[in-house]
């Protein structure tokens, strides 16, 4: 076989030799294409798999862990939630609108594939600075694409984050998370079990879209002019997506469906080989039976197409017609294209002729695993310390300037384009610490949050990874939810670079440790590598999607002050450290060299304390101290509140003032408590707890060690905060 052929499908010489060894012969062109997509980084996780085993994946609530289309957690009384997050970075960099839209469609399919009805979407977005026209275009396009698909398909987009940083110049990140709700007995897996069972392809017709999306687009660095890769972009159809949700859930009601898998990256190839490999069976399909949108498609094109809104169903023998009838009712194609066999082979026919025949497990389980060389940042590298900025004199000025930073400003411009109320179960929408969706017919609610600060992981991948998990959990805790499981998207640079692999390893170690200490299992996730443009790698960006449970959704609290006269208190301890803060970055344009001290045991105590306070009805509102620090956290509680003011007075003589106001030391939560309840709250646990001020009708004043350091008009501050993002565009 000439070198050009395996290179063309994205394989190396060594990988090609392994294929020949596995098959005992040279593959034909189609077989080589199958290996090309299935052994791509995007589908095989070949660089990351050895490290992902560090995550704790078991827990009493875990019904389905990693390896399936989505994780599933038991929330009691026969109910369960399905969760999954996925990146759509490279497609969105080429065509932001359709890239983001198909990202939404894809993650929804992962959820209802499990038998769950999708109830919430969240998006974590990262772009280069808005001072560049290209970044504005990408940002607008991605937000429009998300709203186009999400709003039309009728699933509320309830939260997420947007963050701007130079490291995403040319390589934006679009990570989408979806959550679904199901009755435990309706759970279905992506397995082709039961020899003789029928295999159906359902949903949209197959076209030539997105061929080689997985192997070429998602698994290579992003140097060459992206325009060369144009044909690999797909177009989504949200109305078809909606029909597919309804038809799938109705088909599952028949009890005739034994397995479902969505057709995403690597299309039919991936769905057929994975379902067979999970069940330990074989699959035989005839590509000539696949309904097509275009004339003259070759078997290769049918197998590799990434046309959207398609699924694979495995149905009990003889019951295919019953399922097809349901799809016809929803005006969707459903064609019987093959059956389950017992020989472990993925056999592809084009009519009578067998055009490819490979062991299903060779495509999946036998995919190469690389232990790529790693290099960890050395300690001495860190001793070159950046001189700390001169103490600024006008703190009010700094506060106003920070509130106008696109990273801290209100994200209303984004979420006002999303329908976050559709389905009428959103009890807390965007703008809170976490979103809350109620489970109809019960008292329960689920709290969902996404989080990840890549400046922290850039400075220290281990601590940054741990902080991402802790903060996402803290967000869920702040609304009254107990964290029960998480999914993630691990976005990193080029894994063939030793330092990037070092960052990856350390970030996973940090995340895994935080999961263990906080007792939160990982139910799955997604890895996106090769986030590199012209030799520049993105900051390591692990994103955490956390799900929490509220047994009684009426006990939730918001992050805005509720009543003038209540006390403002701080759970946790202030520490001196500005490294990684938005303040250093926005005002002085540096990251800093160290992160604040982070103690996971303390974190756990702070979260328990807050949960207990909310559960007993003693905490009226809560907001965690994160980006922008304490002053920004309090300002946001004012803007989101009914009582629009705060008078703070603290004594912290040992901490630099800018660090106290804007430093981002973790494990801190600002809470609002009625005067009469303060002593009861103090006794909730052995955690530093102090009264730092009082809720007012208006005005934001801050006194430190008996000296007033700013006193600002809150109407003016809120105007800056609400309008800054709009003016940046």
């Amino acid at each position, binding site marked *: 076989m000439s070198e050009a052929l395996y290179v063309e499908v994205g394989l190396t010489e060594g990988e090609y030799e392994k294929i020949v060894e596995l098959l005992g012969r040279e593959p034909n062109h189609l077989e080589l294409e199958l290996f090309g997509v299935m052994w791509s980084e995007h589908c095989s996780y070949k660089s990351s798999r050895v490290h992902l085993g560090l995550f704790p994946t078991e827990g009493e609530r875990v019904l389905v862990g990693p390896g399936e289309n989505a994780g599933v957690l038991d929330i009691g009384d026969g109910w369960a939630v399905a969760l999954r997050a996925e990146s759509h970075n490279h497609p969105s960099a*080429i*065509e932001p609108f*359709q890239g983001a839209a198909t990202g939404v469609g894809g993650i929804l399919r992962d959820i209802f594939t499990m038998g769950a009805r999708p109830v919430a979407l969240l998006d974590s977005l990262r772009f280069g600075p808005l001072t560049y026209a290209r970044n504005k275009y990408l940002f607008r396009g991605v937000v429009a694409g998300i709203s186009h698909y999400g709003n039309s398909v009728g699933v509320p987009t309830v939260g997420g984050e947007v963050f701007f940083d130079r490291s995403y110049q040319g390589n934006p990140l679009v990570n989408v998370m979806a959550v679904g709700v199901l009755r435990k007995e309706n759970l279905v897996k992506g397995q082709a079990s039961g020899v003789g069972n029928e295999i159906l392809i359902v949903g*949209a017709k197959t*076209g*030539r*879209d997105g061929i080689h999306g997985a192997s070429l687009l998602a698994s290579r660095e992003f140097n060459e002019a992206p*325009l060369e890769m*144009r*044909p690999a*972009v*797909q*177009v*989504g*159809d949200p*109305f*078809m997506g909606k029909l597919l949700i309804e038809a799938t859930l109705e088909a599952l009601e028949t009890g005739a469906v034994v397995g479902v898998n969505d057709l995403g990256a690597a299309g039919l190839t991936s769905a057929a080989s994975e379902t067979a490999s999970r069940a330990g069976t074989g699959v035989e399909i005839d590509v000539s039976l696949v309904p097509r*949108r*275009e004339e003259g498609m070759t078997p290769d094109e049918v197998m590799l197409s990434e*046309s*959207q809104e398609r699924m694979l169903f495995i149905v009990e023998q003889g019951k295919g017609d019953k399922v097809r009838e349901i799809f016809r009712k929803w*005006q969707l194609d459903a064609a019987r294209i093959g059956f389950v066999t017992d020989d472990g082979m993925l056999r592809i026919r084009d009519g009578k002729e067998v055009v490819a025949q490979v062991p299903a497990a060779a495509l999946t389980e036998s995919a190469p695993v690389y232990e790529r060389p790693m290099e960890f940042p050395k300690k001495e590298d860190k001793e070159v310390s950046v001189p700390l900025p001169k103490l600024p004199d006008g703190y009010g000025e700094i506060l106003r300037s920070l509130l106008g930073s696109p990273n801290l400003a209100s994200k209303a411009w984004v979420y006002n384009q999303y329908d976050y109320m559709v389905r009428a179960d959103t009890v807390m929408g965007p703008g809170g610490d976490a979103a809350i969706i109620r489970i109809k017919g019960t008292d329960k609610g689920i709290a969902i949050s996404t989080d990840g600060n890549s400046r922290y992981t850039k400075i220290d991948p281990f601590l940054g990874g741990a902080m991402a998990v802790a903060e996402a959990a803290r967000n869920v805790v702040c609304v009254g939810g107990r964290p029960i499981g998480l999914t993630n998207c691990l976005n990193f640079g080029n894994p063939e670079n030793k330092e990037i692999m070092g960052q990856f390893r350390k970030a996973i170690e940090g995340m895994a440790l935080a999961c263990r200490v906080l007792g939160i299992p990982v139910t799955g996730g997604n890895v996106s590598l090769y986030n590199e443009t012209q030799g520049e790698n993105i900051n390591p960006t692990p994103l955490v999607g956390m799900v929490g449970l509220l047994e009684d959704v009426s006990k939730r609290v918001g992050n805005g002050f509720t009543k003038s006269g209540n006390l403002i208190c701080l759970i946790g301890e202030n520490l001196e450290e500005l490294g990684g803060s938005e303040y250093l970055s926005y005002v002085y344009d540096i990251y800093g060299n160290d992160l604040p001290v982070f103690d996971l045991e303390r974190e756990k105590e702070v979260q328990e304390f807050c949960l207990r306070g909310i559960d007993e009805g003693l905490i009226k509102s809560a907001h965690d101290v994160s980006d922008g620090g304490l002053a920004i956290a309090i300002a946001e509680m004012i803007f989101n509140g009914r009582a629009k003011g705060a008078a703070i007075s603290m004594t912290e003589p040992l901490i630099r003032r800018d660090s106290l106001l804007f430093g981002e030391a973790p494990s801190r939560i600002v809470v609002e408590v009625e005067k009469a309840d303060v002593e009861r709250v103090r006794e909730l646990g052995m955690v530093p707890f102090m009264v730092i001020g009082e809720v007012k009708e208006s005005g934001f004043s801050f006194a430190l060690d008996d000296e007033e350091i700013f006193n600002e008009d809150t109407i003016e501050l809120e105007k800056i905060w609400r309008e800054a993002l709009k003016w940046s565009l």
Partner: protein
Amino acid sequence: MGNYQANLKISLKKGVLDPQGSATMGALVSLGYEVTDVRVGKQIMVEFEAESREEALALVDEMAKRLLANPVIEDYSFMVEEVGETK
């Protein structure tokens, strides 16, 4: 200097899914028409000034590439007509 009028036709590339086209086709079929394919595109008219016909063609092509069409998923074609001279 001449006044020119350009007439651009923009449509989704062959092979790219056209949800609007398929919905329209579905509606036509349900009205009883025997339709086999529908593709929906758009037409844009632009009036502008240019030194020569060559410059006019180049300008329209540039406008289409940079803004009017999305070359990632759309094809475009255009005609340019001179509609009179400016003093």
